[in-house]
């Protein structure tokens, strides 16, 4: 069976996504605030649903590096995690790497919250982003 590799470039309102069936790799990175989130995430669900577990050795690795995700996009992430959970149920171990800006508890909390809803191994990795002075306008 031909191995899928899908790369979706980011836009101002949708994240960068890579799904590489041969390497057993899924990545999502950036911002997500489309008007209708499900339109963006539905094709991604289908790639994951169509993934053939038997062909890949080792773990399936999923990397999440979110910046801004609106509420409905966050809900769609749960849809992704449920599909990753299915991959695990079908016999391949799934590892989730959850990257977050060390100053951004919000993104960490989204990951923690989502981890309660699926039975998957989550690794949380803070990233040091030194980009902000704390000068205010007044």
């Amino acid at each position, binding site marked *: 069976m031909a191995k899928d590799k899908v790369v979706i470039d980011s836009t101002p309102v949708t994240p960068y996504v890579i799904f590489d069936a041969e390497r057993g790799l899924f990545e999502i990175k950036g*911002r997500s*605030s489309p008007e209708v*989130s*499900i339109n963006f995430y539905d094709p991604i669900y289908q790639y994951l649903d169509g993934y053939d577990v038997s062909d890949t050795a080792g773990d399936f690795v999923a990397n999440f590096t979110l*910046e*801004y995700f*609106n*509420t*409905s996009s966050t*809900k769609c992430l749960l*849809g992704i995690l449920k599909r990753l959970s299915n991959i695990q149920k079908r016999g391949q171990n799934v590892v989730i790497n959850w990257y977050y*800006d060390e*100053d*951004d*508890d*919000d993104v960490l*909390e989204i990951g*923690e*919250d989502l981890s*309660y*809803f699926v039975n998957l191994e989550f690794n949380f990795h803070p990233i040091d*982003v030194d*980009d*902000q002075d*704390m000068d*205010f*306008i*007044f």
Partner: protein
Amino acid sequence: MLGFLRSSRDSSEKLAKHSFRDLLLFLADKVQGDSEYESLTARIGKFVNQSREKQLQILPETYLLLEQYVTELDGEIKSREDVRADVLAKFPWVNRIQTLQVIFIPHARQPIELSKIFIASVLARTYQLLGSTGDKMLINLSDWIKDAPDHVGLPIPFELQAELPKNEKDWFSLLSKISHKLYQNLENKFSENFTGKIYEKSYQDIAEKYKGLEDFEMTIRLLPMKLLDAAKVNLLSQKNKQKVLIGQVDDLTALNRKITQQAKELQEKNEIISAKNREITESIDYAKRIQFSRMPDIKDFNRIVKESFIFFKPRDIVSGDFYWFKKLDQKDPKYVIAAADCTGHGVPGALMSMIGIEQFERIVSYRKIADPCEIATRLHKSISKLSKRQDDGIQDGMDLSICTLHSGTKKLEFSGAKNNLIFFQRGNMKIFKGDRHAIGEVHDGHEVFFTKQSVKLNQPTTCYLFSDGFEDQIGGNFNRKYKRVRFYKLLEKMHELPMQRQKEILEQELHHWMNPEGIDPYAQIDDILVMGFKIEFD
């Protein structure tokens, strides 16, 4: 398929024995003794040093240059026809050199042959760049162009059969029509840029070789209007400029008519869009009135808590964020204050918010329930019932922070759904974190309940309730989220200032964040709501 190009190569081999040098010297010798003679023979010397292939390529322009000298400098002025008759008598083979043929055919036929060479060159370039596209039209045209106008069998391309010329002199006009049609056709298939380049290059080709021909200027009519720049037209003699221009007046008139028609249609469509837009905006404006009429009057917030502000900045006209507050029980006053953030913004968010507002009315105003935890739980029950009805997998919900101030017991109680309460007492910041599930969010098998936190209000306390719109706003010099950490620092830094001043600071800080110097302004990404109030119970 490319008969024209192939036969050119064949004849160059067969005719290799002919001396182009003799031909050119024959002309030069006619002006022997003239001051230009030396430079002409030098030029011929240069010519012979070229490869045979290159010679064939530059033969027409070299020949035409010499021919012109002969007609002008040979003492008595000879006509070009006379010179050509001389040449033909001496070198009968010139007629068989592909690149020279067009020079030695009867004068009236020259524009026709030039057109054929031009169109063939356009086709050849198209093939060269694209490979054989198997395009029937292109194949038919290159077959047809080879023999025109001598055959009558094949139909004229582009359904121009009706234009079949009665006289030979009208063939040029037909061929220029074909050239224009071909241009449109290629432009539609490929791109304007690509087609324009092919036409420019092909025209340069024939201009290089044949610009010395008497009627070469006529060929400019082979080019579509948009390729005719002033430089090309100014090259023409007065007579031909007129010819070309007159020939183009018709085109222009037709084009003008077409543009006028298109402009009219465009304007009509514009009017429809404007009308629709107006209609939609008006109806959303009206929806805003409804939404705001269901929310408490923002001015009343100062009546309930004297030192307070509400910074409310919907992304669109209507909002998914909303505030709500109510004073209960005149004898033992309790104040319920809430900031909510519904999934989405704009119209979908606003519809959700209307449900939320109505539920607040029902639970707090009519049932007189003041306990924030109970309010959150009841809201959750009614909204999750509604969101279950959807079948698209998207669950609508609401983030919420809600607090109740008890003036009698001097106590603040807080419950939150994904949102927090920040408050300051004696300059110290404290955070009450809300529970980590939204109102209305149902997950199979997970029981949802809300908790309550409370603090004594026996000292001045400044509180903030807010949606995540402010902290999530993208901007700054690094195109980043404002971030919670920074937002909390901002609150900490300003919390002792007068409340109205704090509202101004939020406004300015947000504006500054979204309009960094030297970078395009950022758009607001979500609704923004921040409520601040200072409580001092006696």
